[in-house]
């Protein structure tokens, strides 16, 4: 698929970066002229994916989180969030609503929300090697006013 523009970011897995990642995603997506609702969807999905990398991937260290966003032909925004952390042993199970290994500060609804706010969600993971979450959303160009 033809790539029209992209950004790559890398930051340590610290929770203070969750807000930064959302803001960066919204700033990059702005060039596609999304609606307020679409921007909210993008911010939400990024928050979920980045928070997972921060909360779940690195239990004993502060590892790195990579985020790549690109614009593909046909007004499609692709967001990839990658960590090199502990990985997910059973991805299908992890993606079930309410499933969480994170204790009561987590809801287990992260993947469910990513799936419902974006048009595509793919999770690839290997134990002790890391997790890559790739999401796509078609931005429906606004009607001319």
């Amino acid at each position, binding site marked *: 698929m033809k790539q029209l523009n992209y950004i790559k970011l890398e930051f340590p897995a610290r*929770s*203070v970066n*969750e*807000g930064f990642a*959302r803001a960066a995603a919204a700033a990059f997506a702005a060039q596609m002229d999304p609606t*307020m*609702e679409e921007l*909210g*969807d993008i*911010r*939400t999905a990024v*928050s*979920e994916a980045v*928070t997972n990398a*921060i*909360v779940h991937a690195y239990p004993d260290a502060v590892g790195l989180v990579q985020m790549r966003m690109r614009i593909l032909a046909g007004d499609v925004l692709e967001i990839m969030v990658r960590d090199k952390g502990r990985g997910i042993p059973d991805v299908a199970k992890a993606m079930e*609503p309410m499933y969480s290994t994170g204790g*009561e*500060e*987590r*809801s*287990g*609804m*992260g993947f*469910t*929300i990513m799936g*419902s*706010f974006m048009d595509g969600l793919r999770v690839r993971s290997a134990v002790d090697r890391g997790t890559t979450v790739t999401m796509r959303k078609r931005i429906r160009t606004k009607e001319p006013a």
Partner: protein
Amino acid sequence: MKVTSSYQDGRLTLFLQGELDHHQAAAALKKIARTVDDYLPQDCVVDMGGLTFMDSSGIALILKISRLMDQSGGRAWVVNAKNQPLKVIDASGIDRMIKVEV
């Protein structure tokens, strides 16, 4: 984010403002748990009218408040959520576990 509260006649209202994510949730919960403990209210109204953003960390927070209130024999519900926070609430299906007034 910011949490403020008001109390009258057995009803505690919590006003959540700003962005509620995992980074903010722990401090918010600490403050809320302390406030609930201070007043031991019958009802706890979680007013989300001032929230500009919430992710699933907010869902976990709502469920936790609901459990806190269950333990003390009271009840909790959510009011005034709109836009992005309301969409997250809808997608999560928590309105089957806690009342959500819009």
